[in-house]
């Protein structure tokens, strides 16, 4: 009977992951399609590869937070106030959270609201947690960190987007020879992306060779990968440059179009790393408990890696089946963001989201991207920004957390009556 819970949890997690792939990814890739840097098909392929890579290679940090960071593990342990039912209730609760978050995503998408998978799942976990073990069972300091990151991450995206575009403006656009300036800095930009991406997995790779790789080796290896990427990019870029006559800015944009392919992959990776947790974090908790036959809450045990692969797979499927349509819609509407601006916004977003992922903080990639785009706008990059969007986003926060929490509590009550009766 209890193993039905595991099956439900896996299905719910896959459904959540599919939703993430179908909706969220569009925001990560939309700016690249809209600017013309990628075709729809290329966007789907790039997203597919890098979302999975991010989820599998770097998704563990945030997944651990969602798995066991939000609720106090002692409350659900056999030695806790719930006694022997603790682990089962936790498993039921995490499953409810998944179902609630997925349901909320459907509802708000249908209502046309801006929706965050991250906020939904965090709200849902808090929801059943408060119902079962009361307010004391929630790790409010961790919640505090997470909510703070929801404010700080868009601001950081904004600051980096602002500085990034200011840099492009000063080095490239202000230049007498913008095309030449672009060709000169392009390899360094690719190297920067390559290095940062490599940093996410170099430590683990080197770990297979040397048990505790010295940070200097990690840094050097990452720089090496970055340099390699730059070398590969060089001939591609020179092929795009063309003859140096007439209006230089379209050619600058074309070169940045190539660079934007790189940042699109970068954002997809960062998004996968951060958001896979929204689907498999709760699942990881259920799997861990199911392994013990629902008798223990195994916190000390690290999470199984196949769970990350499952989440990554779900995201890619959702992306391939439905996400492409959303990307097409988004891409068709966003023509105002040219590659120079898109590059700056995406680079800023990816860096911020990766940093948050490293810190184990679940953030909304969409909100960070909005912050980054606004940052670029403040640096005089964009023709017109609708600042009312900020209020809509804040509004969605206020709506999502309680709604997801309430849904989660209700579903939990239903499941509990089904499985404990």
């Amino acid at each position: 009977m209890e193993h039905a819970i595991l099956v439900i949890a896996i299905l719910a997690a896959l459904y959540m992951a599919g939703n993430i792939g179908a909706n969220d990814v569009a925001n990560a890739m939309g700016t690249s399609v809209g600017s013309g840097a990628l075709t729809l098909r290329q966007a789907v392929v790039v997203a597919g590869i890098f979302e999975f890579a991010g989820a599998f290679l770097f998704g563990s940090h945030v997944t651990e937070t969602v798995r066991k960071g939000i609720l106090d593990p002692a409350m659900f342990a056999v030695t806790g106030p719930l006694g022997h039912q603790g682990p089962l209730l936790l498993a039921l609760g995490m499953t409810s959270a998944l179902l609630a978050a997925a349901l909320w995503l459907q509802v708000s998408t249908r209502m046309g609201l801006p929706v965050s998978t991250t906020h939904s799942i965090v709200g849902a976990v808090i929801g059943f947690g408060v119902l079962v073990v009361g307010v004391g069972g929630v790790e409010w300091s961790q919640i505090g960190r997470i909510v703070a990151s929801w404010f700080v991450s868009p601001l950081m995206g904004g600051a980096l987007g602002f500085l990034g575009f200011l840099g492009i403006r000063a080095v490239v656009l202000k230049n007498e020879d913008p095309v030449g300036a672009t060709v000169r800095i392009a390899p360094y930009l690719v190297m920067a992306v390559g290095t940062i991406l490599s940093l996410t997995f170099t430590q683990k790779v080197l770990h297979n060779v040397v048990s505790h790789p010295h940070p200097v080796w990690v840094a050097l290896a990452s720089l090496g990968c970055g340099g390699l990427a730059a070398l590969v990019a060089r001939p591609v870029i020179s092929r795009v440059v063309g003859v140096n006559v007439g209006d230089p800015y379209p050619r600058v944009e074309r070169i940045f179009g190539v660079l934007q392919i790189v940042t699109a992959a970068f954002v997809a990776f960062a998004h996968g790393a951060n958001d896979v947790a929204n689907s498999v974090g709760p699942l990881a908790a259920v799997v861990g408990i199911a392994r013990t036959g629902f008798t223990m809450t195994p916190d000390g045990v690290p999470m199984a890696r196949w769970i990350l692969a499952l989440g990554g797979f779900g995201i890619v499927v959702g992306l391939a089946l439905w996400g492409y349509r959303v990307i097409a819609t988004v891409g068709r509407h966003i023509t105002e963001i040219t590659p120079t601006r898109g590059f700056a916004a995406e680079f800023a977003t990816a860096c911020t989201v990766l940093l948050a992922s490293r810190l184990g903080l679940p953030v909304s990639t969409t909100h960070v991207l909005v912050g980054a785009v606004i940052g670029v706008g403040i640096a005089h990059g964009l023709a017109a920004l609708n600042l009312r969007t900020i209020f809509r986003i804040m509004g969605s926060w206020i709506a999502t957390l309680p709604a997801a929490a309430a849904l989660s509590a209700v579903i939990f009550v239903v499941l509990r009556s089904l499985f404990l009766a």
Partner: protein
Amino acid sequence: MRTIFELFGKSPFEPLAKHGQAVDDVVREVRPLLEALLAQNWTEAKAVSDRISRMEHRADQLKAEIRDNLPRSLFLPVDRGDLLRLLKEQDAMADAVEDLAVLITMRETRVPDALKPRIRELVAEVMDAAKTWMTISELLPHLQEAAFTGPEVKKVLDLVHTLGEQEWRSDQLGAQLGRETVLLEEELGAVSLTFIMRIGQKLSDVANHAETSGDMVRLMLAKG
């Protein structure tokens, strides 16, 4: 999901350049209009005036569209006030031409041969100023592409400077025309005198509005 594209507002720069083209269509009719006046060809004058009226209306519609799409919640890379003032001044050029057409078709005013060369000089200078402004207007979307920096900025500021000089010269010519017209007051009579003076002033107004538009661009670039 839709958050991202709700974030982008409609750019005002391309519509502004389109409005500029519509105004240019109107301003191009000044020469045919004045030549019809000088040749006393009133049927031609009426035909040109009708064309001007239609095209000025189209420019007004474009102006309204731009204003409709510039709510206060929209964040722009330039000052919203400067942009709206630029639009107003650019549109005023077309308005001045329409007023000119009304003046010319209202009364079959005879222009003495002595004044014709000066009038043609004034028209030429005003048309040059208008052409300079149109060049600037077409460059605004390019400036936005370059994020209001780089060699394009200097190019535009140089054009604004040239425009200032052309406006000054057209003011000079307008003043000279006024003086020469007054000298002929006995021959002309009060009503013809007034009409010719008004026509001269309206011509100068076209150049004045062009120059003020240029000033708005200078302000926009200074803050950028």
